[in-house]
């Protein structure tokens, strides 16, 4: 008699699996860099090319490393949120300008405003590969010792800031 309920049981299991699975984003690639030291890099400073921007500059503070480009539409969309985060002062915002033209990037910052403490100019995307970048914008939360604690793929928003990043930052501030 129990086999009479087998189709119902299978249906319930299927619904449960779909309820979870259909809400996941299959395009999201989890980063193997979380909880590991930020990959070493040595880039020219976007605004002052004779100066260098390296991973050592991230030490001693909690920072966001934002991978962006002037050709990236989503980066423009997140710019206001990023500027607000920079203003709030809980984290220092750094940028890596990814596969862009210096002139275009500077123009972009002049027009929209510059929320970055410093920007690295990654012309050929080689540093992007080291950071596992596969689509801009991507933002990494890096702690005071230079360990990556979170990777956000896609534009940053006030919601992500409040619900995911702020709690993490709160923990990191007390470590």
């Amino acid at each position, binding site marked *: 008699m129990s086999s009479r309920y087998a189709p119902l049981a299978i249906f319930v299991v299927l619904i449960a699996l779909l309820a979870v699975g259909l809400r996941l984003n299959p395009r999201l690639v989890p980063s193997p860099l979380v909880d590991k030291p930020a990959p070493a890099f040595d880039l020219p400073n976007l605004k002052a090319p004779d100066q260098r921007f390296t991973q050592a500059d991230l030490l001693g503070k909690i920072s966001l490393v934002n991978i962006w480009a002037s050709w990236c539409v989503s980066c423009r969309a997140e710019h206001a949120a990023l500027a607000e985060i920079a203003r709030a002062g809980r984290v220092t915002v750094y940028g890596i300008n990814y596969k862009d033209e210096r002139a275009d990037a500077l123009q972009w910052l002049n027009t929209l405003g510059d929320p970055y403490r410093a920007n690295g100019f990654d012309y*050929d995307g080689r540093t992007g*590969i*080291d950071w596992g970048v596969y689509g801009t914008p991507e933002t990494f939360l890096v702690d005071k010792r230079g360990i990556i604690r979170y990777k956000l793929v896609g534009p940053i928003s006030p919601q992500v800031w409040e619900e995911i990043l702020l709690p993490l930052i709160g923990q990191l501030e007390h470590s």
Partner: protein
Amino acid sequence: MKRVVLVLAFLLAQPLLAANVTPGLSPAAEARYKALIGELRCLVCQNQSLLDSDANLAADLRREVLKLIESGQSDAQIIEFLVARYGDFVLYRPPLKATTVLLWAGPGGLLVVGLLVVGLWSRRRRVVQAPDPEQLAKLRAVAREVQDV
């Protein structure tokens, strides 16, 4: 005729795929290169390998693989290099791990379960359909009656 020409032109253009441009590589290295980029996933067009994809990132990663081959890295080292940065997803064929056992065993397992269910089901149906002699006699009597009307 135009179609034949078009198909021929397309086929002849295959060697000009960007991925196939490998100047200055030895045949052995080129074979390794082709094999490797066929086994690595493009993370932008995620159902294509680095060999097939036209995405900018795919071109960058192909260039990186080429550079690593030329600098003497082994296949295992190159794969480790990319997995360290992008995770297991960069492998076109997922590695067999605790987290992927369901992925690898699932289809075959489901097939076996399905065949078992069908086998058991059809066996039960055959048993059920064995005629009950008493019922059979009654049915025969009714059938004869109906025929006589």
